[in-house]
């Protein structure tokens, strides 16, 4: 019986690098959300000032950026799935408190992590790995290899996000 499997290398490469089409998808989603944010009004508040409104809007823009990126990456990476879930919960509750370092660890694959820590190779990397787990969405339950792979992809997507946001900001006619 023939196995019709994509060889690991090709599949990994396809999943590895954020592409130009990702950049386009993200830019479009983000811009559309920006326009929607522009039309929105903050809830009426006695302390409302224009600087407060700017900060309120900045929070929405920040959320929109991460959400647009996570959606553009889709479900094919663990970090994007985890981030989408976190953001949906955050936006549903209208709270924005430290989602980046969520303390609610999924207990699913902590066992794998413990096995890894026994190996002496990772001893000096453990502290770094531990920090990465807090920084990469969904990192808490990843084995070290997946964590490193997801980190690489996550970093490149973050860079893309920053680049697009910067070019929008600089492209604004003043």
């Amino acid at each position, binding site marked *: 019986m023939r196995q019709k499997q994509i060889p690991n290398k090709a599949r990994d490469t396809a999943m590895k690098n954020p592409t130009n089409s990702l950049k386009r998808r993200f830019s479009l989603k983000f811009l559309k959300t920006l326009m929607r944010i522009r039309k929105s009004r903050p809830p009426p508040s006695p302390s409302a000032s224009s600087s407060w409104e700017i900060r309120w*809007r900045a929070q929405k823009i920040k959320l929109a*950026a991460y959400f647009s990126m996570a959606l553009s990456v889709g479900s094919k990476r663990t970090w994007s799935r985890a981030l989408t879930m976190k953001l949906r919960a955050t936006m549903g509750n209208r709270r924005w408190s430290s989602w980046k370092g969520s303390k609610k660890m999924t207990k699913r694959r902590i066992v794998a992590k413990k096995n890894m820590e026994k190996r002496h*190779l990772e001893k000096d*990397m453990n502290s770094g*790995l531990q*920090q990465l787990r807090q920084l990469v969405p969904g990192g808490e339950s990843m084995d070290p*290899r997946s964590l490193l792979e997801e*980190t690489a992809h996550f970093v490149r997507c973050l860079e893309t996000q920053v680049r697009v946001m910067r070019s929008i*900001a600089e492209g604004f006619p003043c």
Partner: protein
Amino acid sequence: MSSRRSHSRQSGSSRITEDQIADLVSKLQRLIPELRNRHSDKVSASKVLQETCNYIRSLHKEVDDLSERLSELLASLETDSDQAAIIRSLLM
């Protein structure tokens, strides 16, 4: 994911090898601007991870700053519908 037995000495395909880890770490090293030019092997894995964390944090900070900036720019869009039309045309 195949389960891993911590006491197994078999080098099956499911076992994570040192080479794979080293490979991934060096790939990360190439991503980090701080470390990109130091192609020598002198950068330890833990340093790469540490710098990666710092880099991610700095990227988050940039997103914060850019969000603030975009918010101010959006506010200035309010008053000029010509600019809004330009942005809208970008989306077409």
